Each structure stands twice: as C-alpha cells, then as structure tokens.
C-alpha cells in the first residue's frame, strides 16, 4: 500500500473512530463508516492539513468513499 493510502486511512481511523479493517476502498463514509456531516467537514480539514492543499467545498462534496479521497489526493499531488 502506498504512502498516500496509508496516511488517508490513518486520518479516517483517527477522525471517525473506526477500526482499520472497516476502512476498505469501497467504504462510503456516511453509510458504511457512520460519519455525519460535521465528521465529513473535519475529515476534509484534516486532509487539507496533512497534504498541504485546500479542498474546495464543491470538490469535497464529491468525496463519498475512501477510494474517492485517495484518488483525489493522488491526482492533486501529481498536478503539483
């Protein structure tokens, strides 16, 4: 598993208080990981801090699954 995947999963485990095993790529934050709307905001804030870029609200709304976030971060890093 790559460094980005690891970091993203660390943050999700920390912020949502879920078991690592539950954080599969397909897991949907709201349905599978029990996140509420404030959890999602906090998750995005933590990603911004960890990876050092801003995530616009319109982009954040599209990030529904663990894989969505991993792909998003990888794409952003590839850009820079």
């Amino acid at each position, binding site marked *: 598993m790559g460094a980005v995947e690891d970091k993203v999963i660390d943050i999700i485990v920390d912020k949502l208080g879920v078991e690592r095993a539950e954080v599969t790529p397909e897991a949907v934050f709201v349905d599978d990981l029990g996140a*509420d709307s*404030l959890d999602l*905001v*906090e998750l995005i*804030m933590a990603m911004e801090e960890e990876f050092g870029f801003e995530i616009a609200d319109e982009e954040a709304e599209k990030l529904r699954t663990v894989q969505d976030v991993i792909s998003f971060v990888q794409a952003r890093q590839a850009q820079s």
Partner: protein
Amino acid sequence: MTQMQVALVTGAARGIGRAIALALARPGLRVYINDVANFDDAALTQKDAEARGAQARVVPFDVADAGQVQQGIDDIVKESGRLDILVNNAGITRDNLIVRLKEADWDQVLTVNLKGAFNCIRAATKPMLKQRYGRIINIASVVGLMGNPGQANYVASKAGLIGLTKAVARELASRNITVNAVAPGFIQTEMTEVLPEKTKEEMLAQIPLGRFGTPEEVAQAVVFLAGEAAAYITGQVIQVNGGMLMV
C-alpha cells in the same frame, strides 16, 4: 488545567467588552482584546488585563469584514496554538423610529452586531473542532427578547444573535463546544450614557432591583459560561437585567 487558555473578546476597548476581558484575565490565560477603534482605550484594557496576571494582546480587526476576521483569528491560532473562548461583544447602535430608519443604518447595525458574530464564529470553529473544546458566548440584549421602540435594527440584530446562538449550539455540541448568549438589561456604559434622561427614568421604573447594571455584573455571567462550572449549559440565554424581564 495546566495548559494556557486563549480567549478573544471583540469590542473590548470599552464598556461591557472591556469588563469581560478584565474579568476573564488571570494567570494562565491569554486574552486577545479586539477593537476596530478606540486604540488608546484598548491599550488601557490590555494594561489592566496584564495587571491581573493575564497575557494580553490588542488585535485591531474589523468584525464586519470576513477577510480581516479570518486573518485575525488565523494569526491568533498561529501565535497561541489554540482558541478556547470567543466572546462576541462588538456592537453598535443607530437608533431611529422605523419610518425614519435609514437603510444604511439598518445595514451597518446588522453587519457589525450579527454578521460580525457570524464571521468570528465561523473562523473560530475550525480550531475549536480540532481541539474538541470551545466556549462561544454572544452578547445579546434584553431588547432582543422584549423589543424596544426606536431600535428596530439593534433589536433585530440581538434577536438574530439569540437564534444564531441556538443553531450553532446544536451544530457543535457533539464536539464539546458550547454556545450561549448573555442578554444584558440596562447597563451603564458609553452606549447608554447618551440616552435622554427621560428615557433613563422610564427604564429605571421597569427594573425591580431599582438600579442600572454595571459592565462587571454582565462580565461575571460571561466568566461563568466560559468556565468549567458551565460545562453542561449550551444554547441558553442568561439574562442579567435586574429583573427587567423575567422569562
């Protein structure tokens, strides 16, 4: 608590804001004294807060300007690492009868009193969410609950602050951030000093305790809400009004 606590009080150069900054001031607390004018007075508040053993800084941003507020609160968090207590006290009056109330006066009062609090809450929420701790206290007014002729703009802003308090209290409660309001009655400050004697006499007649309040008496309610003793209180309005209104 051994960690330093960090507080921001808006409109703290004079009046109730100054009394709040001083009442919060103690060793182990750093208080940021915000004001957009009256810098000599703000410097005096700073000096008096330091005399009480607190660390104090003056931060001259305009609460009505969202960009300035964001920058100001970012700078506070950068310097102090956290923000525990936010007191939204900055407020102005532009009184007139509704038929004579100018649009500019409506806008200005709503912008400073209500949008100013929104700007500060929005910027302060991020660090408070991260630290899983926060105390937000909005200074409303008795007139926000009972109305007052000649103050439609001010009354609307203060009633709006009470609604804002309740909405945000529900949003942030799960993260150990409490949001409350203090509604002062008739308090002796520069803001009320300018009222006609006749108005003051009429007000006094409505106050069961038979006197006007002091800024320090309002500040004590804020200190209570900001402290550990109030951990289970959120979304409430504490009235400090000498019995002028009882609800």
